[in-house]
């Protein structure tokens, strides 16, 4: 199944094959810097140390693209 990531504000989706992954690694895999995005897990912003699993809702907000 993997981890489904929703990008905001454009609602594009990406699925990572891992079942669990650290937020820091998500940011690296998406070729973003930690300063230009905010990762939200189940509606709450999280730090880069957090591990997320496939049953959680993961949103990545590209800060400079938000109105």
């Amino acid at each position, binding site marked *: 199944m993997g981890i489904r990531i929703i990008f*905001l*504000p454009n609602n594009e989706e990406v699925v990572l094959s891992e079942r669990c992954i650290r937020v820091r690694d998500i940011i690296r895999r998406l070729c973003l*810097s*930690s*300063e*230009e*995005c*905010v990762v*939200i897990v189940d*509606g*709450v*912003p*999280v*730090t*880069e*140390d*957090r591990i997320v699993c496939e049953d959680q809702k993961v949103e990545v*907000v590209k*800060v*400079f*693209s*938000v*109105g």
Partner: protein
Amino acid sequence: MAKCSLCGNEAVATIRYARLKLCKDHFISFIQRKVKRTIDRYGLIERGHRVVLAVSSGKDSVCMADILVKLSKELAYEVVAIHLDLGIEGYSSKLRAAFVELCTRLNVVGFIIDVVELLGGMNVADLAKKLRRPICSVCGIVKRYLLNAVAEALNASSIATGHNADDMVCYIIKSFLNQDYAYMSKLTPKTCPVPGAVPRIRPLYEVYERETLIYCILRQIPYVHTPCPYAPRRSLDVELKRALSLLEEHSPGLKISFLRRFVRNASKYKQESAVYVQRCSYCGSISSSSKCAFCKITEKALGKPMGMEVKKKIEALIQNRDRR
């Protein structure tokens, strides 16, 4: 799980430049204190001031409004929120609804200025099309003019905007690239008072764009996250901000130290670029020529300079003081 550096609860954000990890409550108070320090450091607001909050309903302006409303009791100043409805189809209505919700939530007096109504049925996109000019440039002229007119009608001490640290660093670098020192000298936390122009203040001058977003999510403030449909997809601004965020990641705090140094030196740029200020012969607003930009574009698009008429309509709206 990362823990809050101050209380040990689960952290929601890392503040690299301050070497802190903060939980929800400590993050919110950290940002609010940061804005208060900016107000104190640069003397943005004084006791008894009336501050116009320019709210577009994007994340930055709603964050600014939320914090300034909260600080208004402590620092004893008055706030009035203003929203300009630009009449952009399928977009402006969402912004307007979010503004109404924000005013209700913050319990603040809010005015909505309907641009289409003021410009005789034309929105900014129609105006730009008729003028054959880029929409963002026309929109900027209209917004600056109307905000100043509203603030004057309200007898306000200043207009607060939601420009954040990332915006300001980006604008300063862009104006340097264009060698536009006159514009550069205005990119400080507070613009110099000029008779006829209400000073602009930027309380989020040292708050990063990432922080305003996290603040809005944590405070659950209503904001519209979709960008303007006319905003260019890959603008120089976004590219510059992305490049600068890589530098910030490498050297945390770089943008804030740059901005503080810039403020210390900004007056030097002003001396090199002194512009003679005149009054518009049609509406009396300050201008660099005998006709202000708003009167120029309305004359070209609508056949007559609309400055004076628009000012009168705004004054009537303010006098009615009907809360929207």
